């Protein structure tokens, strides 16, 4: 029972990170119809800058804020300086360019910071608090849930209730019509990239302290899981990304806990394959609107 509770909480905590990272993928997919394969590398870059700032100033929280800001700016930069110039007629073009960005960012990080693992400290204790003799939640888990809860509900509120959210949705669904209605579609696209990259940076800041530490490839496996989550939930569905993230986090935690951690990458791929075979649009794919 102890073990089950531990695995469940651990799975949900990791799942929350997957959810955020998958949400970032979904945001860009919805806005630009690009699967941003560079998201992991971009998020790691933001985390490196954050930990440099934290080391210089001695303040983790200043570094945390810097990570988000660098994430936002990096997203906007990638859109304005790179993706804007990619020919989107074939979906393969942006994918190849994104993969190129991964190589570039990881090479630069390796040159600047070296390619050994650097310790990344967590701002809260990671040892679990006990309730009635059963180890349940660590303060860090609570922090992860709170941070991601705030970001996800903030984004949901923004998209559903604010004028800028309405503009972003309109620009994504119908760019031409939106321009005729005075929406700056290019600006919305950049904003979408910035937000997604900011969310990605947050996810990296939350997950890196739970793993081996900072490394140019630190987010590679998280990216694979998050990509699976996005496909499982449906690339077009933000709620799908969130629910899918939690489900995949749980699944991987149980597989790793009961069947061995060697099997988790395999479990991710099996899940991806199964969903692609059975429901390629994702479990939360909306009913296709009939266009007349």
């Amino acid at each position, binding site marked *: 029972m102890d073990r089950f509770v531990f695995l469940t909480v651990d799975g949900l905590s990791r799942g929350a990170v997957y959810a955020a990272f998958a949400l970032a993928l979904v945001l860009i997919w919805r806005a630009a119809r690009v699967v941003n394969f560079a998201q992991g590398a971009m998020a790691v870059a933001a985390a490196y800058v954050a930990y440099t700032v934290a080391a210089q100033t001695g303040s983790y929280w200043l570094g945390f804020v810097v990570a988000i800001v660098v994430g936002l700016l990096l997203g906007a930069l990638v859109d304005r300086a790179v993706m804007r110039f990619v020919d989107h007629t074939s979906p393969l073009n942006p994918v190849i360019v994104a993969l190129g960005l991964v190589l570039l960012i990881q090479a630069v990080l390796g040159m600047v910071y070296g390619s050994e693992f650097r310790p990344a400290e967590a701002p809260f204790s990671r040892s679990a608090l006990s309730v009635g003799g059963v180890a349940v939640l660590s303060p860090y888990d609570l922090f992860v849930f709170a941070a991601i809860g705030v970001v996800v509900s903030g984004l949901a509120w923004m998209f559903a209730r604010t*004028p800028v959210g*309405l*503009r972003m*949705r*309109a620009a994504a*669904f*119908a760019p*031409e*019509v*939106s*321009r*005729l*209605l*005075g*929406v*700056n*579609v290019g600006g919305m696209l950049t904003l979408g990239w910035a937000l997604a990259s900011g969310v990605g940076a947050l996810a990296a800041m939350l997950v890196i302290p739970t793993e081996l530490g900072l490394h140019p490839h630190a987010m590679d496996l998280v990216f694979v899981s998050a990509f699976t989550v996005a496909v499982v939930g449906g690339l077009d569905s933000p709620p799908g990304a969130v629910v899918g993230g939690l489900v995949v986090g749980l699944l991987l935690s149980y597989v790793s806990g009961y069947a061995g951690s060697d099997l988790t990458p395999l479990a991710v791929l099996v899940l991806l394959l199964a969903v692609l075979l059975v429901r390629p649009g994702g479990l939360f794919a909306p009913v296709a*609107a*009939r*266009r*007349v």
Partner: protein
Amino acid sequence: MSATDLLVVRGLVAGYGAAPVLQAIDLTVPAGTIAAVVGANGAGKTTLLRALSGMIRPAAGQVLLAGEDLRGTPVEQLVRRGMAHVPEGRGVISELTVDENLRLGGLWRRDRADAGRALDEVYQLFEPLARRRRHLGHQLSGGERQMLALGRALVGRPRLLLLDEPSLGLAPRVVARTMALLRQLRDQTGLTVLLVEQNVRSALAVADQGVVMALGRVVTAAPAAELRDDVELRHAYLGF
């Protein structure tokens, strides 16, 4: 050009790729009037509207809206100059609700209070939309979509309304109602309309001015009543 001409087009050349579709279009629409552009398929009617609203860049020529040259104005700025374009197929965003579609039409406005008033007016004008505020665009009937697209343009309180084939795929009764509404808006609010239509009869019935296009040129521009009565012209270009 007189002071009352809201839209003046001079020598407009535009198209897709090398061969221009529009060849030196000249056109004048006085403020507070309805102009109907009619002509066969492929005459360049839709291209004309797209060139006017900047969706395609003219290769040559001038577009003046109330005396201001629109060359180089980005598409998203035109609505701020008072030009609203309701595209062919009407462009209702089917993933958004009726209310969101309508609000989108007024989001660019700084005068939020008046944007709210304009929204209320549109709901009064199109009563069926008020009953379906929360419905998604793709749940609406063709007639309701028509209302929604038109209403969304009106929320921006345009001076000039560009309408591309409002009768497309709609029942004659709905078309007649739309045309009557355009007339009503012209009389009550001084709205200027440039209407592109295949449905020549109903377009000329409501318009002040008729513009006949063929093969990318304006063949003739005359008071609509004259065109309706000119049997030879009708036979030659309009097919009835």
